[in-house]
């Protein structure tokens, strides 16, 4: 595709047809269409997406100095609209429009998306979103595709179940998709890490910790706290102190984690592999594994051949807000649709704590290029 395409009448017709089919399915399932502004306050995305997305965002400054951006996705503004509208939950919203990102190839691309917000039953929400994306793709004429599925919750559950120093659980969950970096991280944890502050607290009883930590902070005198509270520092050091002065990761645990993340292949055998691998913590894993099996059954019932569905254990989509089930649809033209659960985003936009969210986005131009419609 050219970098700066101008669509002629035929292409516009084809794109409208594909988008119409997708939006038609969304509407039939009760998703109401929204059209967020293309020009958005940069802050909205910066505070939620981290520096990596920011680097991909087209930023600009208006004459008064306000920092604006071309929306890098439509999910965040759509969710923001829902929170600010004060409307009830669950809410079903959808959109079709351009998103803008610095990236090789196309800097702007059309996507159609649907967001299901605030449905308390996560399994039901996951199933609805997966079925919705599938039906929309089929309505747009896509019969042949393969799928990748994953679940960030599986890995999180595993890390919580295994014998891992408490202070490192977050680190492991955060970096599990970073190939290379993650392996180095595991190796460092096995080698052990000295903790200067925790050493100073070594041997103290739980109730002695807080005053001892406070005293260490006070010793630094007039230094600023830099936006953190003393409570945050006390909390983190208390957790570290509970792991001892020089925590280490059991090599067997590291090996299990490494083996888990390597699992990738046709979904059913892959899940079986995970079951065998995690036998030692089977009681904790049974629920998220059953949820994944359930999804595979649902896909089969919807006519997706099981051999076309791959389960990839380290699949978390390189987008920082996903938290649970994730899926992608692929053709030879590349990824045509993807989505998943992002249960922490709405809270950051001001929704009540624990407001769930699951969504999908469909690359309508790629459907058009793949000859759909």
């Amino acid at each position: 595709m050219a970098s700066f395409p101008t669509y002629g009448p035929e292409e516009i017709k084809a794109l409208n047809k594909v988008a119409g089919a997708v939006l038609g399915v969304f509407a039939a399932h009760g998703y109401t269409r929204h059209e967020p502004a293309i020009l958005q306050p940069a802050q909205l995305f910066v505070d939620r997406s981290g520096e990596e997305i920011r680097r991909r965002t087209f930023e600009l400054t208006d004459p008064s100095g306000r920092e604006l951006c071309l929306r890098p996705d439509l999910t965040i503004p759509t969710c923001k609209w829902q929170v600010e509208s004060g409307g009830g939950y669950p809410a079903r919203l959808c959109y079709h429009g351009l998103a803008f990102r610095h990236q090789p190839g196309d800097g702007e691309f059309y996507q159609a998306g649907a967001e299901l917000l605030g449905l308390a039953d996560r399994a039901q929400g996951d199933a609805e979103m997966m079925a919705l994306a599938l039906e929309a793709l089929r309505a747009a004429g896509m019969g042949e595709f393969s799928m990748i599925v994953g679940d960030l919750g599986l890995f999180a559950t595993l890390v919580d179940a295994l014998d891992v120093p408490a202070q490192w659980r977050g680190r492991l969950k955060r970096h599990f998709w970073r190939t290379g970096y993650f392996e180095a991280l595991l190796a460092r944890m096995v080698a052990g890490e000295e903790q200067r502050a925790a050493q100073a607290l070594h041997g103290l009883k739980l109730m002695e910790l807080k005053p001892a930590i406070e005293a260490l902070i006070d010793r630094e005198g007039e230094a600023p706290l830099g936006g953190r509270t003393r409570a945050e520092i006390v909390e983190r050091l208390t957790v570290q102190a509970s792991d001892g002065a020089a925590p280490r990761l059991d090599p067997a645990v590291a090996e299990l984690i490494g083996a888990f993340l390597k699992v990738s292949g046709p979904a059913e055998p892959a899940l079986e592999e995970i079951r065998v691998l995690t036998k030692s913590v089977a009681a904790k894993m049974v629920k998220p594994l059953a949820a994944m099996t359930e999804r595979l059954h649902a896909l089969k019932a919807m006519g997706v051949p099981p051999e076309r569905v791959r389960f990839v254990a380290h699949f978390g989509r390189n987008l920082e807000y996903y938290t649970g089930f994730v899926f992608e649809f692929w053709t030879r033209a590349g990824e045509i649709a993807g989505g998943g659960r992002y249960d922490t985003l709405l809270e950051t936009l001001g929704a009540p704590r624990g407001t769930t969210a699951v969504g999908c986005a469909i690359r309508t131009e790629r459907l058009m290029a793949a000859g759909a419609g």
Partner: protein
Amino acid sequence: MSEPLTLAIPSKGRLKEQVDATFAKAGVALVQTAGARGYRATVEGHPGVDVMLLSSSEIAAALADGDVHLGITGEDLIREAAPEPEGRVALLRPLGFGFADVVVAVPRTWIDVSTMADLDDICAAYAHRHKRRLRVATKYAQLTRRFFARAGISDYRIVPSAGATEGAPTAGTAEAIVDITTTGATLRANGLKALDDGVILRSQAQLAMSLAAEWDAEQRAAAATLAARLGAQIANSE
């Protein structure tokens, strides 16, 4: 005769004095060009060389953009202007002055933070607790991005800082900083400490060559002669 070789050197400050001293020692004498208000000079005995006196950061940008052939400025500024220097700028010789480390520094009250891995934990916890990203004030946005990416940190955002970066945490405009330090005294005075593995770059003044500039044979010859007097060899500009 072809267009002259252009050499950019610092126009003011300590760096200028040290460049003057280095030139004097190498027997390179600058002659002020009449009427150019001190921003242009020639080199005695090197008729094909045009010297421009610019600010240190302008020199880095000019090297990266190919607006000058040779330049002397801080490696920190060169790497910031040309994050992937291969093919754009070649460092010919460290000159032994203008030493400064580009470091990641945090408030000293963060007694639980001494490494980049700690900072990674803090960034994630901060975003979760405060519903916004931890802010890092710096004028080295490119160096910071690359270094943080290598350390696996993404939950943060850069606040561009034009000056007095070390005061940002006290002023409340950022939580952490990336800045240059020589002795660490300024960091200490502002209640900050550098992280153990937070040295992004050990920088000093460099004689550098722009690979992005247009080079002809005469300019290359002039550059080779001049570089040789400063104890350096020029790079292949193809």
